[in-house]
């Protein structure tokens, strides 16, 4: 018998369990690696956005402590199901259920031992626990492995939200469940906190769900062409751009010199539109329909005399806004402001504005309006 094991002062039964633990420690470590790798794989494939995955093999000291407290409860090492433990921490409560479904498919779940502690609390008590599955590895994950007993080692997977995790960590630190008597006042405060975190979890899920509903609704309105009902913001403008509203003008401009179109984002122009007072997508759409022809003529006057056969896809919106600003009296200053908003401050913006203003001044839309 290893003299170090004796140092824990355990009885013979517990000492034998501890010896067995030492013997199988490499297998436990390998199970931990396989479990973490498989969890990462299934979560990556699901596309779920989570806070993190962690795992550990219970230390010898920790196991000895557990055996000291309740060693007689365990007949053999196999009865202890949390020597290998993994934890998946999600941001939202409903994702815990999604993860549990993935875990069920990936591992062999022992349903008799697994508990949903979230449902165990009495109506008049607060608690804030996670979902615990006791699992083992399927044969398919152990092919080619040389270590013994990998499929018979049971392990625990906890699934919880970040707030549940925070609660579990803090309550563990305070000795909330240790059996040590906590003064009533502190216990009450801990319970209040548990209730608050549970409500916060629900609210986060509710907010996410509401935002998803809003996005779906806006997307439907945009795709249905009901632009007057859609406020102009980052999400709605992105949905609008997905409809390629400037594609026709873009292709006309490209045809001037049979140019290659380099795809670039038009999102930086959102701030310009908002600064100009556009509040709905209808405002953008009205500008597009009203000024497309003039924007095309501006492009012809700029590109027509050159052999430039490469342009970026945001040129259409740039030219539309140029015409809009000049048609509405914005002048050189208005153009300079647009360049600064989109590309950042630069002394060159004023030069650019002057050049474009000079070119545009020769076009009919400027002569009619000024």
């Amino acid at each position: 018998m290893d003299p170090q094991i004796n140092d824990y002062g355990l009885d013979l039964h517990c000492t034998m369990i501890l010896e067995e633990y030492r013997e199988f420690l490499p297998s436990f470590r390998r199970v931990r690696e396989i479990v973490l790798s498989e969890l990462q794989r299934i979560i990556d494939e699901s596309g779920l956005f989570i806070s993190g995955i962690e795992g550990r093999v219970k230390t010898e000291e920790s196991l000895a402590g557990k055996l000291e407290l309740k060693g007689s409860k365990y007949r053999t090492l196999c009865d202890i199901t949390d020597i290998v433990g993994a934890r998946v921490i999600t941001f939202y409560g409903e994702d815990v259920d999604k993860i549990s479904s993935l875990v069920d498919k990936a591992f062999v779940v022992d349903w008799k031992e697994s508990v949903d502690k979230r449902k165990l609390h009495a109506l008049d008590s607060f608690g804030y626990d996670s979902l615990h599955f006791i699992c083992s590895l399927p044969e398919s994950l152990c092919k080619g492995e040389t270590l013994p007993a990998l499929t018979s080692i049971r392990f625990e997977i906890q699934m919880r939200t970040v707030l549940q995790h925070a609660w579990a960590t803090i309550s563990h630190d305070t000795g909330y469940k240790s059996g040590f008597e906590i003064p009533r006042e502190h216990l009450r405060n801990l319970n209040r906190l548990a209730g608050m975190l549970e409500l916060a979890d629900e609210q986060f899920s509710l907010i996410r769900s509401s935002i998803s509903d809003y996005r779906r609704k806006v997307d439907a309105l945009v795709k249905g062409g009901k632009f007057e009902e859609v406020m102009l913001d980052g999400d709605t403008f992105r949905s609008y751009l997905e409809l390629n509203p400037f594609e026709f003008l873009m292709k006309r401009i490209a045809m001037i010199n049979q140019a290659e179109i380099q795809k670039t984002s038009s999102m930086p122009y959102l701030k310009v539109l908002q600064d100009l007072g556009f509040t709905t997508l209808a405002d953008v759409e009205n500008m597009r329909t009203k000024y497309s022809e003039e924007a095309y003529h501006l492009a012809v006057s700029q590109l027509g005399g050159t052999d430039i056969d490469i342009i970026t896809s945001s040129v259409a919106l740039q030219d539309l806004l140029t015409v809009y600003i000049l048609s509405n009296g914005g002048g050189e200053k208005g153009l300079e402001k647009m360049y600064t908003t989109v590309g950042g401050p630069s002394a060159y913006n004023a030069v650019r504005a002057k050049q474009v203003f000079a070119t545009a001044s020769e076009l009919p839309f400027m002569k009619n309006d000024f």
Partner: protein
Amino acid sequence: MELSFEKKDNLLSIRVEGRLDTITSGEFMAKIEENFSDEITDVAIDCSELVYISSSGLRVFMTLYKRTTPKGGKLILRGLTPQVGEVLNITGMANLFTIE
């Protein structure tokens, strides 16, 4: 076309003189490749003596832009002449690059 390169930390500084056209752009890109390395995130081009840029030159600029921005870097153009600046403007590229 005359070129000079200087590397300092994550910045590759380039000075280009003359014309960036169909003939010289290939050499320009080849020299950039020789001087480019993984740690480079920003590229600064001194254009004060660049008198002409064709579509081929613009394609080199776009290549550099696409190589630097995914790393959080930028393509900086300095000392633009009105002629080169106008070309960048009418192609929509002036809004992509950092112009100093």
